[in-house]
C-alpha cells in the first residue's frame, strides 16, 4: 500500500537537548529507494537529525523532539508507536563500526533471532553477507570473531547485520569516515546496490561522496542561535551545480568558513 513515493516525511521537526535546540524546523520528504545525503559543517546537527529518524535519541535523557516524523502517514513520535518497532523498520549503521563481540555468523543471526525470524538462519546469513559484498571474504570463517575483521569489513558486517532484519530504510552516519579510499568506494558501490531495495539516508563530510553516490542532498547549517536547520534540500545535481543558497555554494565548493 504505497500511497506516496516518500519513505519518510518530516513536518516542522525540531530536536532539543534540554533547553538547547540542536535542530530546528526541518521539513523534508525522503524518496523511496533513493539515496539521500545530509551534508553540513561539524556540529550543525546532522547526527542528531539522523538519530531522530529511528528514535535513537530516546537514549539521550535530555533529548526531546517536537513536530512530526511520518512513516506511511504515521507519526513515529506519537504515543501509540513503539520505538522498538521503529528501529526494526529503520535500521542504522554507525560512524564507527560496532560489531557485537561475537562470531561473524552470530552478528547477523542475533538481530534476526530477537526479532522472531522464522526462516532458515544459514540462508539469511549468507544472503545478508552477499548483499553487503562480504560473503566471499568471510564465508570460510563465519564462526570466528567479528573483531578479527578489518575496519572496512566490520563496517560491511554492520551493514549486513542491518540488512538481515529487512528494514525499509537504512540510516548511515558517516559510515566510511574511518575507512581507507578503497573500502569507502566499496561501501559506495554497495549503497548503489542496496538502493534497489532500500531507502538510504547517509550523513557524510565527503563532498565527492555526496556528489557521486547520492540522488538527493540536504544541506544543513546553524543559525545565529546555534540551532541547525536544513537550508536547502534538492536533487544532488542541483545542489552541486546550481545551488539556490549562497552558503550551500560556498560549502560544497570548499569556500566555507
Amino acid at each position, binding site marked *: 500500500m504505497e500511497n506516496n513515493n516518500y519513505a519518510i516525511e518530516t513536518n516542522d521537526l525540531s530536536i532539543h537537548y534540554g533547553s538547547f535546540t540542536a535542530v530546528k524546523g526541518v521539513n523534508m520528504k525522503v524518496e523511496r529507494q533513493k539515496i539521500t545525503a545530509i551534508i553540513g559543517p561539524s556540529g550543525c546537527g546532522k547526527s542528531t537529525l539522523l538519530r531522530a529518524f529511528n528514535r535513537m535519541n530516546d*537514549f539521550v535523557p535530555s533529548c526531546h523532539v517536537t513536530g512530526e516524523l511520518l512513516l506511511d502517514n504515521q507519526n513515529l513520535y506519537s504515543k501509540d508507536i513503539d520505538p522498538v518497532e521503529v528501529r526494526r523498520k529503520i535500521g542504522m*549503521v554507525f560512524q564507527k563500526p*560496532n560489531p557485537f563481540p561475537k*562470531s561473524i555468523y552470530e552478528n547477523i543471526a*542475533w*538481530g534476526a533471532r530477537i526479532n522472531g525470524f522464522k526462516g532458515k538462519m544459514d540462508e539469511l546469513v549468507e544472503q545478508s553477507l552477499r548483499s553487503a559484498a562480504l560473503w566471499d571474504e568471510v564465508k570460510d570463517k563465519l564462526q570466528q570473531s567479528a573483531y578479527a575483521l578489518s575496519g572496512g569489513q566490520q563496517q560491511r558486517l*554492520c551493514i549486513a*547485520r542491518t540488512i538481515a532484519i529487512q528494514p525499509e530504510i537504512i540510516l548511515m552516519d558517516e559510515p566510511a569516515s574511518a575507512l581507507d579510499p578503497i573500502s569507502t568506494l566499496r561501501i559506495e558501490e554497495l549503497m548503489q546496490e542496496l538502493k534497489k531495495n532500500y531507502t538510504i539516508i547517509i550523513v557524510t563530510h565527503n563532498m565527492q561522496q555526496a556528489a557521486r553516490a547520492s540522488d538527493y542532498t540536504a544541506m544543513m547549517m546553524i543559525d545565529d542561535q546555534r540551532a541547525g536547520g536544513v537550508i536547502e534540500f534538492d536533487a544532488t545535481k542541483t545542489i552541486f551545480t546550481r545551488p539556490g543558497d549562497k552558503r550551500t555554494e560556498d560549502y560544497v565548493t570548499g569556500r566555507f568558513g
Partner: protein
Amino acid sequence: MSEQNQNYPEGSAFYSELRKRYLTATIWQTLFLSALVIAIISLTALIYNVLDGAFGYVAYDYKNDPAEFTSTPIHELTKEELLTILKAELSSGAYNKLDNEKKMEDRSQSDLYILFLERLVQIDTKATWSMTDSLTRGDEIRAEVAEKYPDAELEFRSWLTPQFLTTPMSSKAEFAGVRTAVLGSLWLVGIAILFALPVGVGAAVYLQEYAPHNWLTNIIQTNINNLAGVPSIVYGMLGLAVFVRVMESFTSGAMFGVTDSNGRTVLSAGLTMGILVLPLMIINAQEAIKAVPDSLRQAAFGVGATRWQTIWHHVLPNALPGIMTGSILAISRTLGETAPLIVVGASTFISLDPDSPFSKFTALPIQIYQWTTRPQAEFHSIAASAIVVLLVLLLSLNATAILLRNRTQRKW
C-alpha cells in the same frame, strides 16, 4: 626563529636542565621502589609470623600410660578395640554424654582415637616453641626439657596436620581442629553470595540501565557508596536486630518445622554478611556495567532489540568479568569479618558441623580470635595453623573465582 628559541634553554643550559629533570625522576623512582620494598617486607613478615607459630618443638607427656589400657601399640588400635576400651574405662555418664552428641558406633577410628588420647591417656603439653626457636636453639631446648620435664617427650611438630582440618573443636589444643569453623565459614560465604550476587547485580542493572538520573537516584547512589564504608560492627547490630530478633521464626527455621534452634543461626549470620557486602557488590557491578561501551548498546538497539534483550545478551555478558571481581572481593570480606559474627552470635565452642541454614555455627576468624586469647602457648600454635587454613581457603576461593572470571572473559 631565533626569537622563538630564546624561550627554551639551549646547549649547555639545556643539558643542565635535563640533568635536573633526570634527578627528579630518579628521586621519585627510588621512592616508588622503597614503597614496594616496604610492602614486600610487611607481607613477608606477616607470612613468617604465622608460619613461625604453626611449626615447632613440643614437649608433652602422658598422664596415664597407654599400656594401662591396652597391650596393643596405640597407633595400631582398631575402631572396635577403641570402642571397647572407651566403654570400659570412661564413666558411664561421660560415655552416654558422648553417645548423645553423636553415636559412638558412627564415629570414625580417628575420632575415637582422639577421644582415647584425650579422655583416657590424657596427653599433656608441657611447653611449645616457635619455629625460629626450634630451628636455631635445638640443643638448648633439648637440655631444658631433659631438666624440667624428665618424663616428657620432645617432638618437632607441624600443628597444621590433615587431622587439624578434619577434627572439630576441642578443649585441648592437641585435639582441636578447624573442621566446624571451616564449614561454618563456607556456609557463610555461600549464603552471603547467594544473597548479595543476585540482589547486587539486580540493583546495579536497575541503577545503570533503567533509573533516570535525578536527585533521588543521586541520593541513593551516594548512600550506597557510603554504606560500603560503614564499620562492619554496625552491620552486626543490624543483623542482630533484624535477622536474629525480628525474623527469628524464619532464621531459626521455626517456620519450616525446626524446633531446637533460636535466631543465632548460620542463616542470620550469612544474611548479615550478605548485606555487609551488598554495597561492594552493587558498586562493582555498576562499574562493570558502565564499562560496557555505549556503541554496543546502540548496536543492539539499532537492530530492534528491547532494553531487556540488550541487557541480557550484551551488557551483562560483557560486565560479567567485573561482576566476578566484585564477588571475589565479597568472598574475601565474608571470610575475614569477625565483628558482625560476634554480635550476631557465633558460637565460640561448638563441635557439631553446620548441616543446614538453621545450624549453630562458628567461623574461622572467630575460632582464631578465641584461640589467641587463651593463655596456653599451644593454643597460639593452633591459632597460627588456623590462620594458615584461612589464608589458603581465601586464596583457593579467590583462585576459583578468578578462573571462572577468565573463562567468562572470552575476548572475541
